[in-house]
């Protein structure tokens, strides 16, 4: 991969960075990503990202869990080895509600979480690009890919400084 040059704006405050994102985008600069030590509500919208749709994954995995549980209980209790309990129905469905519920929750949670890991490319051997180690401590980092911006390094540095960045560094990845 070719070396890419990034400008890294460091902000000290969550409100400042949220405000700066608007200003920087308004001046026509494309932001690569903003790294923060904690979730800042509204930052994803300020950056123009779509709403996260993890719920779709949760629903699809959940419904898979429901179907598996229905199939398991129906088939074992009703078809493979029906047990006569006092002449009752071979498949009284309310008795299986706990199993169906638990398997739905189990598959929905794990399926959604692993979808998240896959989407983010996360795993024990992942080698993340860290623009500034302080971004998991107390600084809010705005990374700008110079190769994807028409403005010059100096111009972008000025825009970042003006919007409240306490330092602007250069990082090659």
């Amino acid at each position, binding site marked *: 991969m070719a070396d890419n040059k990034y400008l890294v704006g460091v902000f000290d405050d969550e409100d400042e960075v949220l405000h700066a994102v608007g200003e920087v985008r308004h001046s026509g600069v494309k932001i690569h990503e903003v790294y923060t*030590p904690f979730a800042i509500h509204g930052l994803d919208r300020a950056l123009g990202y779509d709403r996260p749709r993890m719920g779709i994954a949760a629903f699809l995995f959940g419904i898979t869990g429901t179907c598996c549980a229905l199939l398991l209980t129906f088939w074992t209790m009703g078809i493979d080895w029906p047990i006569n309990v006092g002449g009752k129905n071979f498949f009284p469905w309310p008795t299986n509600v706990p199993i169906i519920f638990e398997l739905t929750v189990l598959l929905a949670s794990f399926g959604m979480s692993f979808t998240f890991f896959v989407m983010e490319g996360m795993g024990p051997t992942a080698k993340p690009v860290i623009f500034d180690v302080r971004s998991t401590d107390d600084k809010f980092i705005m990374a700008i890919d110079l190769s994807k911006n028409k403005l010059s390094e100096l111009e972008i540095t000025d825009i970042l400084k003006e919007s409240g960045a306490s330092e602007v560094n250069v990082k090659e990845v």
Partner: protein
Amino acid sequence: MHVVSPIREKLVLNGKSYHDITEDISRHVEAKPTKEWKVAFGISVLVLLYGTAWVCWTWWEGLGVWGLNKTVGWAWDITNFVWWVGIGHAGTLISAVLLLFRQKWRTSINRAAEAMTIFAVICAASFIVMHMGRPWLAYFALPLPNTFGSLWVNFNSPLVWDVFAISTYFSVSCLFWYIGMIPDLATIRDRATGMRKKVYGALAIGWTGGAKSWARYEDISLILAGLSTPLVLSVHTIVSFDFATSVIPGWHTTIFPPYFVAGAIFSGFAMVQNLMLVTRVVYKLEDYVTLDHISLMNKIITLTGSVVGIAYITEFFIAAYSGVEYEKYAFINRATGPLWWSYAAMMTCNVLSPQLFWFESIRRNIVVSFVMAVVVNIGMWFERFVIIVTSLHRDYLPSSWTYFTPRLGDISDYIFSFGFFFTAFFLFSKFLPVINMAEVKSVLKSSSEKYPEKIKKKA
């Protein structure tokens, strides 16, 4: 910009900055273990070894080492199981239900509470495996095909529901705990060098804290909370079905699910209270776990204690109102029979003592809160003992009536669970961040004394 009401309680004291939070919490992970930690850990390992030896003996010799007899077939084992499962409800409750209710004070206690949940559920499961007597046949509880036996498991049985409920609860709690920890593991990774960087780096699975990741992360946290809330309620509901679907007088009651869940929250919060009161002092986290936190926990303890109290009284009333002779006798025997002392202990510890928390001075008193949390858990242990043993020891046949006396095996196997619980908790508190740094930072502005002032000055 942040507008904060002056009457909003401060969750983080002494004007901590974001960096102070990182320092205060990471310090314990990065420093060498202290002497106090080593001593405390050493003691719990010794207790665990003693307990493990007894558990092995229990399996070698058989369940005869317990005080069970042919009338009382369930006693300390199932009491301990239900007690630990109950304690294991607080973590998910704090992190999931309080998240849905937007209770910001949860942020400084949820991590430790979730860890406690996981260890408590393992302790609970250990009693089921002990009770099996032949743990190598534990797979009989799984839905495996005929080649492993002659039949499928019986999905009509609450005991099978229990297997599903508890294993799902355990797995989802672990997942919730781990996902909540990923940003903090990344914080430690970015501060570390050498071997520690490798280990925490692998655990942090490449977290960077990008805005897109955070948006998705918040989304899955909310959905996980939404999934865990009914899950946590279902677990103790299903545990109560173990009793409620039987035909034993004293067990066969429809009130059991809500009553068990309230009791579970009650004892779980008491255990969290105990652990946090010690952790905040040992790790000097008084600025994060404040008197307000303790007082809020005590309020929930009082509420759930009162719910449980109403359930006890309702049970009695319904037994009398039902007109069923056996049911009536079971309850009169509970309160006045040979095991009356356990009923009295339950009533005093669970119903009367938490009412002291109506006084603010008591609610905010650390020593009293600690003692009360222990008392509550003693009371909750007796509640399960009362339900299980007093309902069994005088059954339908007066010729089989008997008394239950625990033997050394019962006591030692109970001690095992404490050894495991504290060993695990000490390991957790040394090697992982005990407070959710990212979440505390996220509520800092709206709840610290420093930040609103800073904004005011700027404006």
